[in-house]
């Protein structure tokens, strides 16, 4: 049986000395043509689709720019509604015992220049406004707003809440920006009063919280890694600022970071690289790393980059979509997206690609470590466009004003 066929073949096809290999002409099979056609069509349609998105986005920006350049009667008011109102409230009244009012504030009354300085540097320390002392934690907008935006915003706030008629130009704002890395936050009302020379009433003294220098063994984990393992900074950046799908760690609540590290180790959150790194860490190392990152006050390097509809993103973040039982992001993650430890991470200035990735992972069942399956359910209610919209909006927010220590640093600084 095994030999026969070979012999048969040999007898049937005798070797022919004149034989030339040839391929008879055959038409390309129609499925292949149709397949190529369909792919081409698909590609063209996708291109067209994304071009429409880009066009819509450009139109939106144009409208926003028009508002900014004063073609609208109230320049800066849109920016105020989007960037300031979640804390200081649309009417500028602030929140009792938490957020200082702008209305009637002696700081605002000094005019747009001081307001711009505060916007650029943020505040980390106690501040007295209208006889109330607030434990000030205001983010710096230096990394998320342009000079002209800061100028418009400061002028709007000064005009609207301080009855000042001065306006601040982009060039004037540019001159207020300190050299990179030197824009540390104001240490409360006392420093603002001291550096501005304005009379701002009796301001509470800033009590320095000892920064507690970074222990060498933790520093080596962050910047060199242990043995063969990656250093944290090799993916998350020198300052925990993250990039694309690697999350920003700076300013996340320490308890949240520890929980995630434990979840990676226990397989409750799936990521092979993180699992390998975390398995080499002791509990005390996890805690120290988490505290290090939680305290970092680092400028944002996140930008809206997914072409999401920012207005829709703002809607979801601030008000939610109750028709689908999707509460606003901020109703749990805090009114400015600064997070609530230990369950709710900061969202402000998180990278859009990372945020959408996580939302998709929850919706698709690949991430399952949120309490009560809150995020699993909410994510599954959000379509792709909504995920991109909300991720882009969150990426546009100023970073968490974490820590009251002197660890402020700018991107690119080496440790």
């Amino acid at each position, binding site marked *: 049986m095994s030999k026969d066929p070979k012999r048969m073949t040999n007898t*049937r*096809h*005798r070797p022919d000395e004149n034989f030339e290999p*040839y391929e008879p002409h055959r038409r390309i*099979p*129609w*499925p*292949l043509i*149709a*397949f190529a056609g*369909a*792919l081409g*069509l*698909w590609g063209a*349609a*996708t291109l067209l*689709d994304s071009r429409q998105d880009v066009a819509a986005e450009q139109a939106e920006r144009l409208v926003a720019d028009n508002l900014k350049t004063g073609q609208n009667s109230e320049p800066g008011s849109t920016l105020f509604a989007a960037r300031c109102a979640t*804390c200081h*409230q*649309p*009417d500028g*009244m*602030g*929140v*009792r*015992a*938490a*957020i200082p*009012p702008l209305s009637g504030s002696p700081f605002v009354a000094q005019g747009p220049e001081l307001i711009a300085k505060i916007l650029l540097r943020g505040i980390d320390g106690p501040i007295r406004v209208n*006889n*109330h*002392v*607030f*434990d*000030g*934690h205001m983010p710096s907008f230096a990394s998320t707003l342009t000079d002209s935006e800061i100028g418009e915003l400061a002028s709007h706030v000064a005009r609207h809440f301080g009855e000042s008629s001065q306006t601040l130009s982009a060039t004037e704002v540019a001159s207020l920006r300190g050299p990179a890395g030197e824009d540390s936050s104001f240490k409360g009302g006392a420093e603002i009063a001291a550096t501005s020379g304005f009379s701002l009433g009796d301001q509470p003294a800033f009590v320095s919280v000892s920064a507690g220098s970074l222990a060498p063994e933790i520093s080596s984990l962050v910047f060199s890694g242990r043995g063969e393992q990656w250093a944290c900074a090799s993916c998350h950046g020198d300052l925990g600022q993250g990039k694309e799908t690697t999350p920003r760690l700076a300013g996340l609540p320490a308890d949240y970071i520890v929980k995630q590290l434990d979840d990676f180790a226990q397989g409750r959150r799936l990521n092979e690289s993180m699992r390998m790194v975390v398995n080499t860490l002791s509990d005390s190392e996890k805690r120290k790393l988490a505290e290090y990152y939680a305290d970092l006050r680092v400028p944002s390097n996140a930008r809206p980059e997914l072409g999401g509809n920012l207005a829709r993103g703002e809607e979801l973040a601030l*008000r*939610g979509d*109750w*028709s*689908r*039982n*999707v*509460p606003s992001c901020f*109703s*749990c*993650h*805090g*009114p*400015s997206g*600064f997070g*609530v430890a230990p*369950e*709710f991470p900061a969202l402000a200035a998180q990278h859009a690609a990372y945020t959408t990735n996580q939302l998709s992972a929850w919706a698709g069942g690949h991430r399952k470590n949120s309490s*009560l399956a*809150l995020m699993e*359910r*909410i994510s599954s*209610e959000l*379509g792709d466009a909504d995920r991109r919209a909300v991720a882009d909006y969150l990426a546009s927010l100023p970073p968490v004003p974490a820590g009251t220590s002197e660890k402020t640093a700018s991107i690119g600084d080496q440790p």
Partner: protein
Amino acid sequence: MTQPAERPEAGPTDPAKGRIARGWIHAAGAVVIIAAVGALAYESGLIPSPQAARQGMGSTTAGYFQPPTDDQIPDDEFGAAVRRGQAIFMNTSTNASEHVGNGLSCSNCHLDGGRQPYSAPMWAAWVQYPKYRSKNNQINTMEDRVKGCFTYSMNAQHSVSGGPPPAGDDIYRDLQSYFYWLATNAPTNRKMEGVGFGKVEKTELGYSPERGEQVFAANCSVCHGADGQGQKDINERYVFPPLWGPNSYNWGAGMARIDTAAAFIKNNMPLSQPGKLTDQEVWDVAAFIDSHERPKDPRQKGNTIEETRKRYHDGDEIYYGRTVNGVLLGVGTPDPVHPVASQE
């Protein structure tokens, strides 16, 4: 075939094999084309996604009255009052600062700014007043009703002014403007679908704070804290409201009654997952929450708890004046040294 001059036919020696292979290629091609066209249609929205379908079906506000959206607030004097009213509603402790003696806002219980059905939406409340209420045995106007909210739910007794806004105060005008505007096109004097907090049928087992403690730990503590005192962000701003203790509603509030709290929880909690808890769990956890001490009933004045219970809480599902674990409830939390959030 055996003639050397004759060219052998191209392809496999077995013609049937070729047909099968060709069939497979065609089938695979067809599948890919259908997939590509299908993906195109899905992308362009021609095919409704399962998500879109679910949006329609699972919608929690579908079938209920639709109040207007914020962008429809008129740009005039009335609209300004609506906006002020909305600001008071969302941020009560700041914008009605003198009359709020705890850490709550109207919008903590009236979700989505007073829009959400079965979280006592203001559009449904507006069309029910004036109304007789046995709570104070008189006809109540909306102002009277809101005054009650300040007195009990907002614990005005510990506020700077020590009481609710006086009659005719602008706070009432602005809040009522907001409610009236939310009820645009709603039928007056009709019980609307979604009014109040709804109702939860009593269970055979009754309610038990002991069972409720476990329900609370499993479903509520992640947001409201293991101690029920709510949670704040880094600016000391309440993100999740306190459910008992000195910063919560007092013993005279509707939410201090177990049946009211149970209905609210059933229809609204946990946030984003209403209806998750069974009726039994809802009764138990409401009993657990409302079996903790909270600010005293401001109507008690010089009377004993026993007298106050008889006079104001007779027949209510409430722990006021009852003894739980050997502790008499209704004594109230200690009065703050200074009024809540007074100036320094």
